[in-house]
């Protein structure tokens, strides 16, 4: 049918955030100190469904701290983190620990910079991908295996590697496996801390391509930390620039990169251009 084919065109396009939809995540005045030192301070932003927000800044600018606080790995000192749960918007800081952990293994996913931190190294690739399925109650072995095989394919790992341990994988493969393991349950919000960090440049490019494909295909909402502006250029709809724990500039990626307002952002952009 005509309508069907029209719709399929739209389906391939990434859903664009609309002003009328509620934010998936609303962050207000988030602050985290390490003693006297500032981790991040007074960070506020909204993330809309289907949006990719890049967080950039030099080393020590508070990117990981912010992400850890948002994902509930660390308790912030002040601020609100409001997530649009199935039962409506909730401040994750006011949730009980069981509730937060449940979110972490259903609606949320967290891709660590170091794949070893996000994988079970003693468990096969299939088991790694299957864990989240089993955590939410999957009890049919053949189904779990089929889904795991499918996901390995989606991250370009040959199905015959399904019973191999991640320790037998290259760094790039481990990172792709970590991504598969995180996305298998269709999370609504994905946190990524330097997902391409520590990989060879050619491996990075391939991983980025793959990530971009998955983000588009699944319409993922993503918070991605990086200090690589090429990564945000390719993946992020919007960009947030941090310095000394504070957000110094945020806006649409192209706007910020092409016409940076803050002196620090200008420096960041020009230093990349020189490379």
């Amino acid at each position, binding site marked *: 049918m005509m309508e069907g084919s029209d719709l399929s065109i739209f389906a391939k396009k990434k859903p664009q955030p609309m002003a009328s939809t509620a934010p998936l995540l609303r962050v207000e005045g988030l602050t985290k100190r390490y003693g006297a030192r500032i981790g991040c301070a007074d960070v506020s932003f909204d993330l809309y469904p289907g949006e990719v927000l890049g967080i950039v800044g030099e080393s020590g600018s508070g990117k990981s701290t912010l992400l850890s606080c948002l994902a509930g790995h660390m308790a912030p000192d002040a601020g609100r983190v409001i997530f649009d749960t199935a039962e409506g918007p909730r401040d994750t800081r006011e949730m009980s620990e069981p509730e937060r952990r449940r979110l972490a293994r259903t609606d949320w996913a967290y891709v660590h910079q170091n794949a070893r931190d996000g994988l*079970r190294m003693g*468990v*096969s690739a299939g088991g790694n991908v299957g*864990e989240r399925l089993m955590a939410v109650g999957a*009890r*049919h*072995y053949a189904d779990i295996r089929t889904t795991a095989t499918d996901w390995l394919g989606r991250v370009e790992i040959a199905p015959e590697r399904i*019973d191999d341990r991640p320790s037998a994988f290259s760094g790039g493969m481990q990172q792709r496996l970590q991504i598969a393991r995180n996305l298998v349950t269709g999370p609504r919000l994905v946190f990524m801390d330097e997902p391409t960090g520590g990989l060879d440049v050619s491996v990075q490019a391939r991983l980025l391509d793959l990530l971009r494909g998955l983000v588009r295909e699944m319409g993922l909402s993503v918070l991605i930390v990086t200090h690589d502006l090429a990564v945000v250029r390719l993946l992020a709809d919007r960009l947030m620039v941090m310095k000394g724990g504070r957000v110094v500039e945020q806006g649409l990626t192209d706007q910020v990169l092409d016409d940076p307002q803050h002196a620090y952002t200008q420096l960041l952009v020009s230093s990349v251009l020189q490379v």
Partner: protein
Amino acid sequence: MTDQAYNFAYLDEQTKRMIRRAILKGVAVPGYQVPFASREMPMPYGWGTGGVQVTSACLMPEDCLKVIDQGADDTTNAVSIRKFFQRTAGVQVTEATAEASVIQTRHRIPETPLREGQILVYQVPIPEPLRFLEPRETETRKMHELEEYGLMHVKLYEDIARHGQIATSYAYPVKVEGRYVMDPSPIPKFDNPKLSDNAALQLFGAGREQRIYALPPYTQVVSLDFDDHPFEAGKAPHDCDLCGAGESYLDEVIVDDAGGRMFVCSDTDFCASRQAVGHRGRLSPEEV
């Protein structure tokens, strides 16, 4: 004669009270691992000091004790522990399951069904079923607290992926009353069905790891599995060569240098009792 250098059943009354409190807590929360301050016992950990402490705290002068190791009453381990309590508590001892009021065991549940009033004490080396995949104690405790047991199925998944079936045949994980996942100690999975709905009180003691847990009588215990790989208790396709029993757990015994083998009940009391009333197996001596 009781050795007067010791308090009854070796441990002092205060320690026994502490252990009994842990047992009561375990009974109140079936399958939950209760920490307790394990004491040094005059034997190495591998000898079941956890079980010995639980037995010590349970024994009354009028009790009748049976001790088995792999189903047998006559192994070094079983004999030593039995002697230990004979010496320190002066209680009666027996090899007959039906006569015992307290049975301490390693690796088996007796074949003869237990009855109300009996206590079965298990020696446990590693009480934490999640340990294999999650070495952090703080994390496994949290997993129990929040009923996050997906990881247990990851272990079974790995089993099937590697062996084509759930190859775990000892210490097969169970879920207790739909709540706590528990390691039943290294009993063969053949014994798992006996854990459930058992008339006896079942107590588990881990000495080195300082944990006690319990299954009160008639507790529901379910072995974990997958829908398409259901739990099977499994049984060797033989009858006992000495008593002909077809439903008991069998040990394989090499009988000669030529590789001759026989299968006999691992539960020596069960086998002997059957032979005593005339049951015979493939290799039973000719009748005279």
